[in-house]
């Protein structure tokens, strides 16, 4: 990766092992969202969307989110996205538990999706 303007908020041990610039969250998907929210409220911006694109990924025990490496002015659009994501997550998981039985596979796919997100970020050279 040429760009170095990101950080990864993750609770995925695979990601922790394989990447630099990691803010590791010792907790669940929701804790990753909350950590992201705290940082967005302190002026960091979201690079990747906090949620996945399919319902199954809501059940993932692991999540990795990309944010900027520097705090800037608070961006309301980003605040709204992370807040709505938390509402959405809680609603989806209302009665469900994360799918721990398949946690290895989720860790792998989360890692793959992160890789795609980073490549996409790389293609947008701002």
């Amino acid at each position, binding site marked *: 990766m040429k760009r170095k303007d990101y950080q990864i908020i993750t609770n995925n041990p695979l990601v922790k092992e394989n990447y630099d610039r990691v803010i590791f969250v010792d907790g669940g998907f929701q804790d990753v969202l909350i950590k992201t929210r705290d940082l967005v409220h302190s002026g960091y*911006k*979201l*690079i*990747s*969307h*906090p*949620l*996945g*694109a*399919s*319902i*199954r*990924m*809501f*059940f*993932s025990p692991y999540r990795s989110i*990309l944010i900027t490496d520097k705090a800037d002015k608070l961006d309301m659009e*980003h605040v709204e*996205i992370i807040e*709505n*994501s938390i*509402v*959405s997550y809680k*609603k*989806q998981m*209302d*009665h*469900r*538990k994360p*799918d721990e*039985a*398949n946690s*290895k*596979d*989720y860790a*792998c*796919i989360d890692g*793959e*999706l992160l*890789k*795609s*997100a980073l490549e*996409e*970020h790389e293609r*947008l050279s*701002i």
Partner: protein
Amino acid sequence: MKLELRRIHIKDIQFGNETVVKDGILTINQEELVNKLKEDKRIKEVKVDLARPGEKVRIIPVKDVIEPRVKIEGEGNGFPGVTTKMAQVGSGKVNVLYGAAVVTVGDIVGFQEGVIDMWGEGAKWTPFSKTYNIVVDIKPVEGLAPHTHEETVRLAGLKAAEYIGEAGRNIEPDEVLVYEMGSHAEESKKYPDLPRVLYVEMLISQGLLHDGYIYGVNSQLILPTLLHPNEELDGAVISGNCVAACDKITTYQHQNNSVILDLYEQHGKTINFLGVILTPELTTLEGKFRTCDYTAKLCKTLGADGVIISEEGYGNPDSDLLMICKRLEKEGIKTVLITDECSGWDGMSQPLADTTEEAVAVVSTGNVSHVIKLEPADKVIGDINAITTLAGGWEGCLKEDGSLQCELNAVIGSTSEIGYHNCTVKLY
């Protein structure tokens, strides 16, 4: 472009010594099919099974569904850019084994759960309980990287559909559907007074198990692009999605995209249908802003008066859907959105987390958290372990009598956001 979809009505399927269609009965030479697929050295084992509507059969975990076809006239048999040489599709004659479907199963990851029940309560919720399904279960050799594994299963499904489709080459069709549409200039001249309508079809484009392909190009890499509707009906777009069972667009649903077909139906009568814009749903926010702006710009440049936007998936794509809507409505272009919703088990939650006041016309294709009960099957095709994943993931979702409770989101095509199925939501 002029495309003839020549439907041969399939009324039953069976195994036999050769792969042929006779009197509407599709016979499959199992061995030949297996050998054909095993030409790919990455495949270790192939099992083929049949599932007919009404049988107490459960298919799980489904990866993709493909319609078997053969092109008898015109360029590009199969799926150009993926399984066959590059060609411009959208014109010519295609013989379709209508009523048959190739269903690929195979767990690339343990949490795939997409289910098709061929009978009873479960059958009501999926459009693929009404097709005669040739189920192809693919086990690759050990040690494949996840990407290669996914690709292997994806290609095997497409090849199986091509192989079976060949059986229809010389059969007289039961009905012929003609899809013809000229250039924008020609059509506008023919129908100067009809409102111009575009279809924006969003595709999940986010990485492994979350991809779509257009002429073999991963949609992650494209700017929104314009297609003649015939191209999609003729195999230009395929699915690489595995984990959004209820609302992913299977390859079958691209080949038979219901929004395209229903807009075609109105072309020249009430509207002038301009075509399909395929829009990737990206992961990064900057990427999302770019594709949404670009989509709106295309619609405006093409002079659309109205646009139907269909989403794929659930979660971050909701943002794209509403952003596109907002941008179009601001330009005075009227939109109708198709999406599913999550209003919780009891249907009492706010259905969308993101909202925008511009989204005044929305078709809801069902609540993904709606709980349904599935009876025990006599026979399970695929991976019996996937049943545990299928059952809800909460206390008491597996009953003593073998029945299970799951949410609609596990059922293939149940809340199809191209409106392929009949589910909707009403306020009670």
